[in-house]
Each structure stands twice: as C-alpha cells, then as structure tokens.
C-alpha cells in the first residue's frame, strides 16, 4: 500500500512535468488568487494589530485633589483597581507629571520658570479592558469615578472612542465582503483552469478506463496532482507576499514592528501560512476531483 502510494506520488510529479504550461496555468491561477487573499489577510491583521495598540494606549485619566492624604490615596487606588472595567492602574505623582510635561516642552523649559508651586495635579492612568471599550461603558465608569472622594476630574476621549469603534466596524465590514467576493471568484477561476487542464487529458482517462481502471484508480493521480498544484500555488503566493512585504519595509527603511502606526507590523503567523497552503492544496485537489468525476460520468 505504502509502496503504491509512493509510486502514485512519483507518477503525479512526472505527470505535472508533462503537463508543462497547462499545469503551470493552474498553479499560477491558484497563486494569484491566494496572493490577493494573502494581501487582504496581511492588511487586516496589521490594521487589527495597530488598532489594538491604539486602543491599548487609550486611557482614562483620573485627576486627584491636591489635598488628598496618603490613606485616601491608597483607598482610592484599591477601589479603582477593583472595578471590573479596569485592567491596570498607574499612579503618577505631581512631580512625575511635571517631569513629563517638561520633557514635552523640551527646549522651552524656561516657560515654566515663573511658576512657584507645581500646578499639575497627580493622577491615576487607567487601562481599560477590551470589552469595556465602548462609549456607554466608559461614560458609566467616568460617572462612577467622579463621585469618589479625592477625585477632582475624570478625562476620557469619548469622541475618539466612538470614531475608533465606527472605523473598526467599517474596516471589518469591507474586509468581510471583499473576502467573500474574492474567495468565490478564485474558486470559480481555479476550478475552471483545473477543468481545462483535465480535459486536455481526456484521452489518458479514456485509455485508463479502457484497460480496466476502477474509478478510484483514475481519480487518485488527478487528486494528488491537484493537491500538489494547489499547495505549490499557495506556497508561491506566500513567497511573493513575503517578498513584497520585505521590499515594502526596505523601501520605508524600517525594521519589522517599527511601523505599527502605518498598520504594517508583522508577517502572517506560521499557523495562518500553513492553513493557506493547506487551503490551496484542498482547493486544487477538490477542483481536480470535481472535473475528473464529471469526465467519468460522461
């Protein structure tokens, strides 16, 4: 059995060599289809990553009364940290806040010279869990925090969050529809190309049946060839995509991960790449099998 399978795989490669341009057409079609799908995946992934990072940076700031005591501060921190929406709390003292402000003013520190007392309040910087990053949840949280003792003011960028959520929804919607349309289109094109390649071999199938091949015997080599073509096509697409990605980074003179702001931070993870190759193989094998079965019925 293993012997026969090995034989079949060898035959498949020989036949692919024989198929020449016709076989190459199938591989290229699958490669182009997967290249498009891959570009789309890469963009969505990186946009998603960029958005996640923006979200992460997005914080709720709780400004504190200048007269707050150490005990009040500790109690307040505990209460805030216990809130379900809060993922993390960082305390920034008046001195630290001033320090940060000075850094931002770099070169124009003299502006602050006339100041006697430090005017900047101490604050808590809150990081919010993803599931609470909605305008409604944030408004509720802010309302609650404002009423706590020792809190002077609560700031959060509601508008920014609203806009962000809307943009994300639009991107996801566009991504989904483009993905569906492209997926269907590539399936059609691929199955058509594979069918053409197989019709060119109708004579071979006829002879195999004439000398007593079972349907399975006829199908097996075509199935294997389809699997190989599909896998190779998808692999080729990944190589092209990786090349294009690297070239883009090079053009921008950036290292991977350095351009999150542009939404181009990382290549597809190996799991996704493997899944794409597997999908290509499945597509090729399925298209091949479908076309052979049609010929066998005729």
């Amino acid at each position, binding site marked *: 059995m293993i012997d026969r399978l090995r034989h079949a795989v060898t035959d498949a490669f020989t036949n692919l060599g024989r198929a020449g341009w016709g076989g190459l057409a199938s591989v290229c079609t699958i490669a182009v289809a997967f290249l498009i799908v891959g570009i789309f995946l890469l963009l969505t992934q990186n946009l998603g990553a960029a958005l996640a990072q923006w979200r992460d940076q997005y914080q709720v700031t709780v400004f504190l009364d200048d007269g707050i005591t150490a005990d009040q501060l500790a109690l307040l921190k505990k209460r805030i940290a216990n809130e379900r929406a809060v993922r993390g709390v960082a305390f920034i003292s008046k001195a630290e806040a001033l320090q940060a402000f000075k850094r931002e003013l770099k070169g124009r520190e003299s502006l602050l010279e006339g100041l006697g007392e430090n005017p900047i309040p101490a604050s808590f910087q809150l990081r919010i869990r993803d599931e609470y990053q909605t305008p409604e949840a944030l408004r509720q949280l802010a309302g609650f925090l404002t009423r706590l003792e020792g809190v002077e003011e609560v700031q959060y960028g509601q508008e920014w969050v609203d806009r962000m959520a809307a943009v994300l929804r639009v991107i996801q919607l566009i991504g989904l529809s483009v993905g569906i349309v492209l997926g269907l289109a590539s399936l059609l094109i691929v199955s058509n190309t594979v069918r053409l390649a197989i019709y060119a071999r109708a004579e*071979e199938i*006829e002879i195999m049946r*004439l000398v007593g091949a079972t349907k399975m*015997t006829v199908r097996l080599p075509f199935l294997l060839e389809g699997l190989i073509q599909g896998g190779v096509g998808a692999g080729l697409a990944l190589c092209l995509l990786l090349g294009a990605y690297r070239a883009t980074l090079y053009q921008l003179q950036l290292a991977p991960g350095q351009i999150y702001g542009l939404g181009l931070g990382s290549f597809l993870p190996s799991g996704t790449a493997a899944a794409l190759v597997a999908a290509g193989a499945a597509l090729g094998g399925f298209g091949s099998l479908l076309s052979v079965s049609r010929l066998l019925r005729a």
Partner: protein
Amino acid sequence: MIQMYHVYKTYARDVEALVDVTLHVEKGEFAFLAGPSGAGKTSLLRLIYRDEVPTSGQILVNGRNVVKLSQRHVPHLRRTIGVVFQDFKLLRDRTVYENLALVARVLGMRPAAGKRKVAQVLRLVGLSHRANAIPYKLSGGEQQRVAIARALMNDPMILLADEPTGNLDAELAADILHLLREINAKGTTVLVATHDQELVREYGRHVLMLKQGRVVEEYRDGR
C-alpha cells in the same frame, strides 16, 4: 467466448445501429466482423467491452452477462479484454514504454513486475528497441504494434481490433494480421472488425458479415 442473442442497439432519433444480432465466437477462434463502414461493427465491439449497453437482447462474454453487469464490475470485465483501434489511441506526450507502463499502473502491478510485463509484450510485437521512442515518430505499422502491445498488457482472453489496418498500406496490414494470428495461436480469442474485403478473403476463417446492423452472412473455413 462471445455470445449475443437478439441484440438491438438503437440510438437517439431511432437510428438503428444493430438489429436482431445473434452470434457466437468460440474460445480460441480468430473471427472477422466484416462489412462496409456504418454497418454497426464499432457499435457491436463496444457492446462487448461494455462501453455501451444494448437496447435489448443478451450478451455473454466468457460466460458473464455483460448487460446486467453493474458499473462497479465493468473494470473486471475490461481486464479480460484487450482493445485496438484504427487510430491507435497512443498518448503523444510520453514514450512507448510510458504508454505501456500506464496500463501496468492501472492494473496495480508492482513496478518491477510492470517493467517485466512491458518488456515481454514489446518483445512479442518486435519493438523492444523502440521502448524509448515517442509514438508519433514511429511508422503507422509500429504504432499499431505498440497499441497491440498495450492491449496485451493484461493477458486478455479476448482481443478486439476495430479496423486495425485502416491506416496502413497492404504490406503493413499483412504484418499486423500475422501478429494477430500469432497472438491467437497462443490462445487468445481474436475478433477483428474490418471493411477490407481483401483482408477477409485472405485471412478469414470465421467471418460474420454485417450490413445495416444485421448479420447477413456467416461462414467458417471449409464450409
């Protein structure tokens, strides 16, 4: 070996290819199916290797009722039959050896056994030295020999030849007929369909004359 009883084959639009055909070809016989083109010779052969089923009537091949044969069992029938065509039907994109090796693979032979079988049938048709040639670079006679070699790969009990000499001149045709005779001498039942009266007169021992789908005449040697 081949028995037909009141076989009719009607195609769409009432084209009657075969009308009430009853015939017997005995085991080990060398028989001719003669008649002009369009007489139904090809249709009759196709019924034997179950490429088609008759509209009515019964057909027994080696004792097996091929009319009632399920699709699943057709391959088993075909492995007992070799078929040769006028246009050879050789695959142009591979060598003589590869054309024959395809059959070995289909029959599930191990690679070593397949190689031996290919060498054996090539020797039988006298083309051992042509194993690596591309079929269309061979002469017509040689191509037909390759086709015959392919038909012999499965050691058939029956060899069907549809106008095997149709594309060959008289001399090459005689060569092919001699080859078929040799194969017949080794025990294979041979049925040759041809419109070539000359060939039938010279080689015919058991002749079935077909005309407009009917067997109009049948004679055996010495009768």
